């Protein structure tokens, strides 16, 4: 789960990492926006709070010289949409004048796996292209040691005593909040010291960490009917723009099916991974959910049965179609593995096209 920037800022502040002064304006705060912003010193930075990357290039980070200007920009951003997300909060910050923009991040990864600590002198929007970052792997049992802090300080050209509390705070936050990524970009070098003026954090949803409860609750409020229903059944669902719903058993297989549809000239409209153990009841729920999406006109079901019984899958699909009536949707099913012939016989008996290979099923649904 990607955290909103203001959530990441709260975590950083809890660990004593210097951040700029800011206020948060929610959709219900439009009347108080002027009052809130007046508590800050101009000039301002107005930032839409969205989970997706790339808001800067989309004009969702803007500067303002006066309270009125900041409020008017904030009102314009609230309720607008970016990459399928509605802007529910806007952060207005005091603008910090950096002498230099640095980059520091920590993330889980590497081989052998550890905490990867990245530092670059070239912070800001271009950091990913700039290269030349220092990459250190921190072993989880050794922890963040002094030598690593000194190497980062030297690489960034800052005193070790100024970067040490920031790195130590980030490292503790990463573990305490089950973060898989915590990024300060830019970390501004100012006359008053280092200030983390923008930040990104990703938390591990599987962690069961009670400290994430507030963030998870806010995230779940944002979910539409599709994702709420998917969560209930243990499916992974991602809404897309096109008209072909892709339903598969297993994440990699469903992604590969999505790619095959796009390669054949189709436009995927839904990603739905059933996960393991696709019994008739779950398959039925998945197809009904796909058919309820207003953009979906075609459905491709791709099942590679191992333990999953293809006849069970077929029964679930037939039941779903019986319940949904004849929705005028083009449906193609690929069944492979345990009991596949029986499964295809059941489908064909109900007038559903069933195939043995992915290519044939894709051709049927896209063509």
């Amino acid at each position, binding site marked *: 789960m*990607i955290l909103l920037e203001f959530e990441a800022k709260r975590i950083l502040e809890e660990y004593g990492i210097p951040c700029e002064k800011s206020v948060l304006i929610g959709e219900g705060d439009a009347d108080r926006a002027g009052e809130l912003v007046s508590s800050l010193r101009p000039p301002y930075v107005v930032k839409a709070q969205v989970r*997706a*990357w*790339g808001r800067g290039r989309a004009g969702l980070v803007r500067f303002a010289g006066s309270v009125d200007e900041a409020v008017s920009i904030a009102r314009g951003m609230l309720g607008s949409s970016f*990459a399928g997300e509605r802007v529910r909060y806007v952060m207005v910050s005091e603008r910090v004048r950096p002498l230099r923009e640095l980059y520091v991040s920590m993330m*889980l*990864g*590497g*081989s*052998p*796996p*550890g*905490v990867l600590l990245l530092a670059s002198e070239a912070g800001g929007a271009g950091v*990913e*292209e700039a290269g030349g970052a220092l990459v250190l792997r921190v*072993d*989880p*049992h050794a922890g963040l040691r002094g030598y690593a802090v000194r190497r980062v300080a030297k690489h960034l050209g800052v005193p070790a005593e100024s970067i040490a509390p920031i790195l130590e705070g980030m490292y503790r936050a990463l*573990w305490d909040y*089950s973060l*898989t*990524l915590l990024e300060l970009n830019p970390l501004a070098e100012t006359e008053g010291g280092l200030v983390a003026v923008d930040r*990104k954090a*990703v938390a*591990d*949803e*599987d*962690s*069961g*960490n009670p400290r994430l409860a507030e963030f998870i609750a806010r995230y779940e409020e944002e979910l539409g009917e599709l994702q709420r229903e998917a969560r209930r059944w243990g499916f*992974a669902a*991602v809404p*897309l723009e096109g008209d072909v719903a892709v339903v*598969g*058993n*297993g*994440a*990699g*297989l*469903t*992604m*590969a099916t*999505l*790619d*095959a549809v*796009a*390669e054949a000239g189709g436009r*995927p409209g839904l*990603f739905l*991974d059933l996960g*393991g153990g696709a019994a008739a009841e779950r398959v039925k729920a998945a197809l009904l959910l796909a058919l309820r999406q207003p953009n979906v006109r075609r459905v491709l079901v791709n099942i*590679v*049965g*191992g*333990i999953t019984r293809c006849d069970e899958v077929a029964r679930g699909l037939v039941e779903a179609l019986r319940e949904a009536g004849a929705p005028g949707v083009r449906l193609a099913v690929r069944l*492979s*593995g*345990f009991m596949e012939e029986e499964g295809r016989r059941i489908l064909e008996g109900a007038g559903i096209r069933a195939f043995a290979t*992915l*290519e044939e099923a894709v051709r049927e649904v896209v063509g």
Partner: protein
Amino acid sequence: MAILVDERTRVLVQGITGRQGQLHTELMLRYGTKVVAGVAPGRGGSRVHGVPVYDSVAEAVEEHPEVNASVVFVPARFAPDAVYEAVDAGLPLIVVITEGVPAHETLKMVAYARGRGAVVVGPNSPGVISPGRCKVGIMPGELFKPGRIGVVSRSGTLTYEVAARLAAAGLGVSTAVGIGGDLVTGLSFWDAYQLFNLDEETDAVVLVGEIGGTKEEEFARMYARGRGKPVVAYIAGRTAPPGRRMGHAGAVAFGATGTYESKVRALEGAGVPVAGGLGELPQLVKRALEEAG
């Protein structure tokens, strides 16, 4: 030979009395895998499909010193404990099928296991299979034909799809390893490749990756430095939108990290051909075999 598992593998099933543990114990036995013992705390003394059950790994290993691999079906909350227990009992190979283990817990248990010379495969792995000889995991054995291609993958059902396509093209598999769909996992692509490189029964390797994380990029960096047997890759998720978790906990691209383009660029830059679609994969493998002579 093959890698990791073969006819000499003697398997311990942790969580053998659960629904998944029971089912897959039966399926592994039917495949011919030598499952010699199971563990379920509080259920010692019982049997599952004829396999004796013990309360702890230590007791199981004392009775069955020939055990040299464990497969973990324990629920996510208790899975790290099961891995530490297997490491402490001296088992050299631990295959973790469980999905949903917290990433930070995995980080610590993998580091612990490495420090003691144990290999952890997974979590969220379909297991390891050396076709016709041994399977330690949940994959449908009949889709894997014996042969000389090594397969290493982050996925489950997509691995079965790839194996079936290889089989249809007359290419069999020496060993297929599912390294797991989580962001943090034990055995890496490179670790598996190094084993395949030393295996006399493997001629080429198919790497099945997907968007998210940097595992494919890390493999490419290592391969560029010290390549051996040819590798052909397929990466799932070309059309996945950024910032969305595509089923697997590890399958999400943020900014420029973990994107399809980043992985393909890294692999091709290291000399690894990447199939544009699944259908192309068997041809690329055949071409790589011909070029390697």
